[in-house]
């Protein structure tokens, strides 16, 4: 068994050495296909990362009809914090609200001179848990708050939230659709390149069948070769992606953000890098298999 495996590996490597041009063509095709897909994936990953970063800003503000007495505030905060979707609650008194407003007005803060300190209502600023930054999460919190008659108004930027969710969904759908399209195109190109390499070696396939080699015996070294080429293509794509990330994408994404948002462009995680190389192996295997079915006929 071990000898057979060694024989197959030896033959796969010898085939690659014997046909350097065809072998390089197959590796490069796979590298280009994988790098294109991975670049697209990386861009989507970064935009999604930015979107998630933005979504951390989502919060609900509940305004009181009349400010609650000081001794009831802690209990009230505790009550709201007990909601499943709520992470943190901050009480903003009318004085604090006025101070913030005045800061925001900047040079025009003088307009507020002589205004009553209780002009603005007291409110609760409610930050949500990381899994609840969705419309459903917000709606659950709002529904709970509206049951409480002490609150006059509840604000949560509904229109913005809907638009934001639609954008993220569109991004995910486009990623999935284009990704599948790229994958199919890559598989088609790779399968055809491998078909060419097999066509150049049809004599070898014919002679093998003639001397009594089984279908599996003929196919295994070619599959192994496809997998090895895919592995090399995957590594090459990863290298290319890293270089283009460092030289182009990082700067490109930064200027796409336009304003500093406290989110640095990210590269693929170790698992994702592993997946990229593994996709290469899989692509090589599937490409070889698809072509071999046509060429190896006993």
């Amino acid at each position: 068994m071990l000898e057979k495996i060694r024989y197959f590996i030896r033959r796969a490597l010898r085939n690659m050495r014997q046909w350097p041009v065809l072998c390089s063509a197959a590796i490069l095709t796979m590298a280009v296909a994988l790098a294109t897909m991975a670049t697209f994936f990386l861009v989507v990953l970064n935009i999604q990362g930015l979107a998630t970063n933005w979504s951390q800003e989502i919060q609900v503000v509940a305004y009181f009809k009349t400010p609650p007495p000081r001794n009831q505030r802690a209990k009230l905060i505790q009550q709201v914090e007990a909601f499943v979707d709520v992470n943190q609650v901050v009480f903003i008194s009318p004085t604090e609200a006025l101070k913030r407003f005045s800061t925001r007005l900047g040079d025009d803060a003088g307009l507020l001179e002589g205004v009553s300190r209780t002009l603005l209502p007291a409110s609760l600023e409610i930050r949500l848990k990381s899994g609840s930054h969705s419309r459903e999460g917000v709606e659950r919190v709002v529904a709970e708050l509206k049951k409480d008659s002490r609150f006059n108004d509840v604000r949560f930027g509904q229109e913005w939230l809907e638009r934001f969710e639609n954008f993220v969904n569109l991004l995910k759908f486009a990623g999935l659709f284009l990704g599948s399209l790229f994958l199919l195109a890559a598989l088609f190109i790779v399968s055809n390149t491998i078909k060419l390499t097999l066509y150049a070696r049809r004599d070898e396939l014919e002679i093998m069948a003639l001397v009594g080699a089984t279908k599996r015996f003929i196919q295994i070294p070619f599959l192994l070769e496809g997998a090895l080429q895919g592995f090399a293509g995957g590594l090459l794509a990863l290298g290319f992606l890293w270089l283009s990330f460092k030289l182009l994408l990082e700067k490109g994404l930064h200027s796409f953000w336009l304003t500093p948002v406290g989110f640095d462009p990210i590269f693929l995680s170790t698992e994702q890098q592993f997946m990229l190389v593994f996709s290469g192996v899989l692509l090589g295997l599937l490409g070889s298999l698809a072509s071999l079915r046509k060429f190896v006929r006993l």
Partner: protein
Amino acid sequence: MIQLFNVTKAYGKESVALREMSVHIEKGEFTYVTGPSGAGKTTFLSMLYGASRPTRGQILIDGINITRMARRQIPFLRRKIGVVFQDFKLLNSRSVYENVAFALEAQGKKRYEVSKKVYQALKEVGLEHRLQRRPIELSGGEQQRIAIARALVVDPLILLADEPSGNLDLEVTLEIMELFKRANARGTTVLLATHDNSLYQRFPKRVLGLEAGRLVMDHQP
């Protein structure tokens, strides 16, 4: 060893390559298959090693009906049969040794066994000193001897040769015939397709004559 019962091979309705052919060839027999081009010689041989199937009729090889054989069984049939072609069918990217070893490796033989048998087979055809050369560097006669070594290295029950001397001069043809005779003397059944009358006049053996796909002669010397 080889039995054909009413074998017909047709390609579509118009073209019939072999018609109602019935013949028995005993174990260890040396048989010529003759006839002009297009008589059906190659079709006949190709059906014996499973490269094509008869449209009608049955073929038995070593008692096994190969017309009913599953495709995955064909490689095992071929391991009992050595085939030699007019155009040698050698791999020019491989050495002489590798070309002959191919047949044994395909059968999953161990490495030491492969090297021993390949050397013996090449010695048998007088090319043991050309082990590392590539077929393309050798003469036509030498290339055909490599092809014969590849066919014989697996100790086949049957040796099929389709116009093996078609591209060779008389002197080399006689050398090749000597190799076939030696294999036959060791018990291998030999079937040699040729349109060269001088061959069976020089080495008289049983002759099956084909014409337009029909067996028109079965002559024992």
